[in-house]
């Protein structure tokens, strides 16, 4: 399972490095969304820092949905899907590999967006850095849930279902992530929200390992 996971993750990341969709399309979209959010709030610095954590996660959600669809599209052509299926890869390993690749891509994007949030939404740098581990875990949980729901809505025709179907699963993660980042900004304890994200990450990984084969077959 671990061997397959590394193989799939390396392949997905290599494809991303070759296609440069993340760098030239997704990250610029996220930055523009963040800038527009800042413009919508107006010039009041205090209002920015109060809404900043929520806006950061809202933009992260939009970017995540783009990346989840992209993650699925790599194998979406019928020929490639059939050909890869005949490799007989361990489904749990495929799930872990795709989750890892998606998490790495989202971590890169989140790092850029966090820097943008400091600059545009005036989040305090020190507090934002202290919340970085929480952001890492939240984004990893988003990647795990996204890989699962991506398999559920796999295929071009149902790709537009992804946002609708996945939002109930993403909502608790986003709320916990936002609370955690807000707690860091206001210098309150953030560990309880972090624990919630860790539990969600472990739960989604376990569900994916157990169910990914069923989702792929159907």
């Amino acid at each position: 399972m671990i061997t397959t996971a590394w193989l799939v993750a390396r392949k997905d990341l290599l494809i991303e490095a070759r296609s440069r969709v993340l760098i030239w399309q997704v990250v610029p979209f996220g930055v523009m969304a963040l800038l527009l959010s800042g413009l919508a709030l107006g010039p009041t610095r205090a209002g920015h820092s109060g809404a900043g954590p929520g806006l950061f996660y809202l933009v992260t959600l939009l970017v995540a949905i783009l990346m989840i669809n992209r993650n699925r599209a790599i194998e979406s052509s019928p020929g490639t899907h059939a050909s890869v299926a005949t490799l007989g890869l361990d489904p749990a390993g495929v799930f872990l590999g795709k989750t890892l690749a998606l998490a790495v891509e989202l971590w890169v994007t989140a790092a850029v967006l966090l820097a943008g949030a400091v600059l545009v939404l005036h989040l305090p740098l020190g507090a934002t850095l202290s919340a970085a581990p929480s952001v890492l875990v939240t984004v990893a949980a988003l990647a795990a849930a996204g890989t699962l729901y991506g398999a559920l809505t796999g295929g071009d025709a149902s790709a537009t279902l992804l946002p609708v179907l996945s939002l109930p699963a993403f909502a608790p993660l986003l709320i916990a992530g936002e609370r955690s980042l807000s707690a860091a900004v206001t210098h309150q304890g953030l560990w309880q929200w972090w624990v919630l994200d860790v539990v969600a990450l472990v739960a989604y990984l376990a569900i994916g390992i157990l169910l990914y084969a069923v989702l792929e077959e159907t």
Partner: protein
Amino acid sequence: MADQPASVARLRDAVVLSAGFPLLAGVDLDVTPGSLTVVTGPNGAGKTSLLRLLGGLVALSSGSGTVVGIDLATGDRRLLRRRVGWLGHEGSFYDDLSVTENLRFAARALGRPLDDLDAAIERVGLGARRRTAARRLSAGQRRRLGLAWLLVRRAELWLLDEPYASLDDEGREFFDVLIGEVCAGGASVVVSAHDPLRSAALAPRTVRLVGGRVVAPTA
């Protein structure tokens, strides 16, 4: 089953349903080791569905069948898939990866030695394009990359869905030669095509499908 002839694939009254619609409506088929079988028929006859059933890519709804010794009804289809090779009429690989990177992924996934890659690339005539991304290859070159993928796999049963589509005469001749070599090496090949193969030298067994049923098996 010592009383039965050696058979790579054997279907009896095989039915495949999709949303209640029969893609295959009771197919009998035998594929012997080292043989070439050509499945012909009009669009929608069930040619691709038959190949997908043989590759373990769709489930058998009723009837019985074994492929490379694995029962289609009760066996592990993932194990079956590892032992067949599939070449679809669309691209069968990752467009953003190079020729070598695609083959390296397949070889690693199947635990095949990476030493075989260069030989496979040279065999299909892509030696000069080994670092080219698959999306930049011509239709014929993409088809050759699909063949290299199959060579690396060393599959026991090759399933080729409309392999002659968008190939020029040279490409078709290359395909015929390679298929002949594969069969001579002991692997079996099942090809779907609209029309019977032109190459008499291959002496294939032709099966004609219409409406998900075999209407004309010929020796």
